[in-house]
């Protein structure tokens, strides 16, 4: 009996995990932020074009991973708080200076999203003198079931991702233009 209950609990835990990883709300959200940087695209790409170097993003204190910029490469970001985010590369094109990745594991307390995918792209700015960096995300809210609490709503997800992108792009601009 005890063993049965133990097994049942384990099965439920597995189900809960699977459910969390795949279940999602009814509306996918999108966020797109961009910034102009006073430097050639190649110089910006040199900073962000390595999948295993996320040091330009302020909350990230460590990036670990393998397989370089190969499709399927994974990375684990450790944040200053100690929280981790696991990500996987699914598109990489050095010629167009763009890569896409998805989050495979994150606590919704760290980033209130599920089924998150994202693309970073560097292109020449409109005046041809600098660069335009765009960061676009597609994701569902943190709460996979109906009637989400406010902190895990669609709005909370959009706000959190938009805030992260703005902080990240500002830091990237400072880093590249400062030449550090």
């Amino acid at each position, binding site marked *: 009996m005890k063993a049965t209950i133990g097994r049942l609990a384990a099965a439920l835990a597995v189900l809960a995990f699977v*459910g969390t990883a*795949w*279940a999602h709300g*009814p*509306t*996918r*959200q*999108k966020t797109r932020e961009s910034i102009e940087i006073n430097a050639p695209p190649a110089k910006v790409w040199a900073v962000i074009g390595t999948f295993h170097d996320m040091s330009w993003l302020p909350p990230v204190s460590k990036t670990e991973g393998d397989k370089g910029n190969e499709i399927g490469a994974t990375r684990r970001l450790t944040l200053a708080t100690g929280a981790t985010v696991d990500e996987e590369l*699914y*598109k990489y094109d050095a010629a167009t200076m763009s890569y*896409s990745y*998805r989050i495979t594991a994150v606590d919704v307390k760290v980033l209130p999203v599920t089924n998150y*995918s994202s693309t970073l792209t560097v292109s020449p700015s409109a005046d041809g003198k600098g660069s335009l960096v765009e960061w*676009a995300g*597609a994701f569902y809210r943190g709460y996979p*079931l*109906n009637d989400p609490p406010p902190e895990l709503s669609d709005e909370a997800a959009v706000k959190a991702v938009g805030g992260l992108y703005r902080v990240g792009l500002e830091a990237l601009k400072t880093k590249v233009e400062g030449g550090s």
Partner: protein
Amino acid sequence: MLRAVALAAALAVTGAARAEEAFVTNQLSDNLTVVDLATAKPVASIAIGGKPAGVAVSADGRFAYVTSPDSKSVSVIDAAARQVVGRIEVGGGPLGIAVAPDGATVYVADWYAAAIRVVDPAARQVIASIAVGASPSGLAVTPDGKLLLSADRDDDSISVIDTATRERRASIKVGSRPFGVTIDAEGKRAYAANVGSNDVSVIDLAEAHEIGRVKVGLRPYAVALAQGRGFVTDQYDGKVSVFDLATLAPLKRITVGDYPEGIMATADGQRIIVANWESNTLSIIDAVELKVVGEVKVGDGPRAFGAFLRR
């Protein structure tokens, strides 16, 4: 003789009275764009609300039914008048939707409740519920109206429902996380896009089991059928995978907009219409030449999940 000519002319006029149209649900702009497919131009925008996602146009082209998961309702749209003429409270999380070929019954998948709501569109109310697997998403009815299929995403299976008894007759195991499901014109085979395993399950409906699997791109959403070929929207690749329906061999991958989702063939099988969720466009594919021949701007976050063409 003259009368026959006049009759033929009248029929031709009736047949050609309107061009085929796309009824595209724009989930993030909370509305629906009607696109004339002959001119490839938007001709109307209809406010919906509640984050519209699923759509089904009746076979006679009179009505479009749209699910709004956030308002837990189905909107009834008079397709010719471009007007919302009714709202049906269905509760839960309405997502996938299908209309019976005779137009008398509408089926709505409740994403959260493992159930299909049976709606009487004339009475505008839910009249029955059918228990299915977890997270039912795509729905499709066979051309004879006898079977309803439900892609039960979190059960990795397709439910086969007898529409006369409103009971599940079978549950067919497919790939991981089936989302969209499409039945061929003969009512013999169904094709389910498996978001989790990046493939399409081919189902024999008489045998009620999976007879083949076709590898496609990343996060396939739905399948369209034309010219003896299957066309699959690969969301994360921004491409449409094309395969041969007889041999199940992959033929081509066509670049469309970003995050393509809803997909359907025109009545003549000459064109494939694709809604690109991230790019806010429709791509029009030549189903014979296998290339994009047009693009139309629509609202924000087009999903067009279901039978979205008024043919």
